[in-house]
């Protein structure tokens, strides 16, 4: 690990000042950042410990929604009684990720900001436009099993690795961000992460000095909430494909279908047109296939990850079948 200056922030403004510097980074749980610092993928000159800022609360909101503080651990969120009862897709998504030891340290804000597990990104001897702009992308013609089939660019085909944010995307949660200028702004989780485009080094919309203070969950809605994660072993592995779903029926037709997908793109993938195919229709294999056609209309594989396209189709169908009570 490269030497760095360790600073403990004692207020939000203090943290904003400290992290606004060019080579400064905030540390909360540190489970991803310290891993990357050991690999010298991340080489901050100043590490700003934000663990004493509060922002750990998980609370009810007046409108019936919930507030999840940025420093609440993944465990605290997943085991919270109201998260379990009203937002089970979120509890399930968190429990499907990492290990208990990691979830006990990982935080809401850090989890949103976790970086890709692309093998070229984490190996400083390999080209990677995300880590070293202009050095090329090793994955496009290389080892690409974990990589994106939706929304990738000629610069980067990395995936966002998390589960929690996929559920938050399906729930249409909102990220609250405190800026270095003292103001706050709210960004939907669906717009928080970016597609790589020509600037793959920017994972999300945060600017220097920005700090996530928490995430707001909207009031709970009626319907089945499911999180299905497909991976290479049954525990402690990243998603090849995951689906977060909130699906409600009205009689024998689908009334609501809020869907988000993990493991397919540089961000949790939410495409409102997929839900529109389903709403007002009777569930069944043909309908689920039409929804998958829309989801995957621009999908492109890179050899090793070609399997993700049919896998996403089947995972979507399986989740919709379970949510609507249809036998496939």
């Amino acid at each position, binding site marked *: 690990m490269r030497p760095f200056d360790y600073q403990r922030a004692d207020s939000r403004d203090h943290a904003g000042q400290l992290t606004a510097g060019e080579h400064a980074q905030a540390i909360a749980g540190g489970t991803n950042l310290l891993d990357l610092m*050991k690999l010298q993928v991340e080489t901050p000159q100043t590490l700003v410990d934000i663990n004493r800022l509060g922002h750990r609360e998980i609370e009810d909101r007046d409108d019936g929604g919930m507030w999840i503080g940025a420093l609440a651990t993944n465990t605290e969120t*997943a*085991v919270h*009684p109201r998260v379990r009862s009203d937002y089970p897709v979120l509890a399930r998504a968190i*429990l499907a990720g990492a290990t*208990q*030891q*990691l979830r*006990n340290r990982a935080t809401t804000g850090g989890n949103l900001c976790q970086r890709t597990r692309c093998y070229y990104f984490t190996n400083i001897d390999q080209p990677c436009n995300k880590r070293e702009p202009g050095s090329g992308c090793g994955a496009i013609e290389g080892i690409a099993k974990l990589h994106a089939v939706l929304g990738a660019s000629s610069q980067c085909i990395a995936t966002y690795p998390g589960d929690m944010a996929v559920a938050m995307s399906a729930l249409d949660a909102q990220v609250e961000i405190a800026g270095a200028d003292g103001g706050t702004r709210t960004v939907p989780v669906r717009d928080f992460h970016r597609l790589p485009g020509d600037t793959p080094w920017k994972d999300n919309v945060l600017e220097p000095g920005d700090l996530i203070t928490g995430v707001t969950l909207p009031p709970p809605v009626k319907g089945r909430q499911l999180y299905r994660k497909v991976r290479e072993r049954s*525990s402690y592995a990243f998603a090849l494909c995951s689906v977060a779903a909130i699906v409600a029926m009205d009689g024998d037709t689908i009334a609501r279908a809020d869907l988000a997908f993990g493991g397919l793109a540089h961000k949790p993938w939410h495409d409102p047109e997929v839900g529109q195919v389903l709403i007002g229709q009777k569930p069944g294999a043909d309908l689920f296939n039409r929804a998958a056609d829309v989801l995957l209309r621009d999908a492109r594989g890179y050899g090793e990850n070609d399997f993700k396209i049919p896998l996403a189709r089947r995972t979507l169908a399986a989740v919709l079948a379970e949510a609507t009570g249809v036998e496939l």
Partner: protein
Amino acid sequence: MSSENRVTINGEAHPLPDDPRVSLLDMLRHNLGLTGTKKGCDHGQCGACTVMVNGVRINSCLTLAVMHDGDEVTTIEGLGTAEEPSALQQAFVDHDAYQCGYCTPGQICSATAMLEEIANGWPSDASENLDGTMKPSAEEIRERMSGNICRCGAYANILAAITEVASGEPA
């Protein structure tokens, strides 16, 4: 770094290291000679470094010692001794729940915290329901212990040892 900064390890207060790069794991092993906690991968993948901080299990390799001002850390040395082993330590011996033994301290620290999590009703990815009483079934224990790798493959005996303590009956 102020000399006021202290971390309590197995009931004893220690000053935090001067170099902020020192992980909690390296502080335990190199600075304090508490070598029961093991360094396997040093990247949070194997669980050999598992300790409890304020009663919660974490990977000590993925946290900086300087971040633990005021925290209470329990390592394998704090759970029992050769003369008075904890129930899990004794069960691991009785069930031969290791071969080389390198992952064992992490397995036992992890399992100690895991039994508390089950008692607290925390669900896991293997739980059918998110609410209600959590049962220490084989499926649950396997899922909840997935952060602790045993490269000798002593999993069957590890499961038997934990099951015996969890159920209170010989497995």
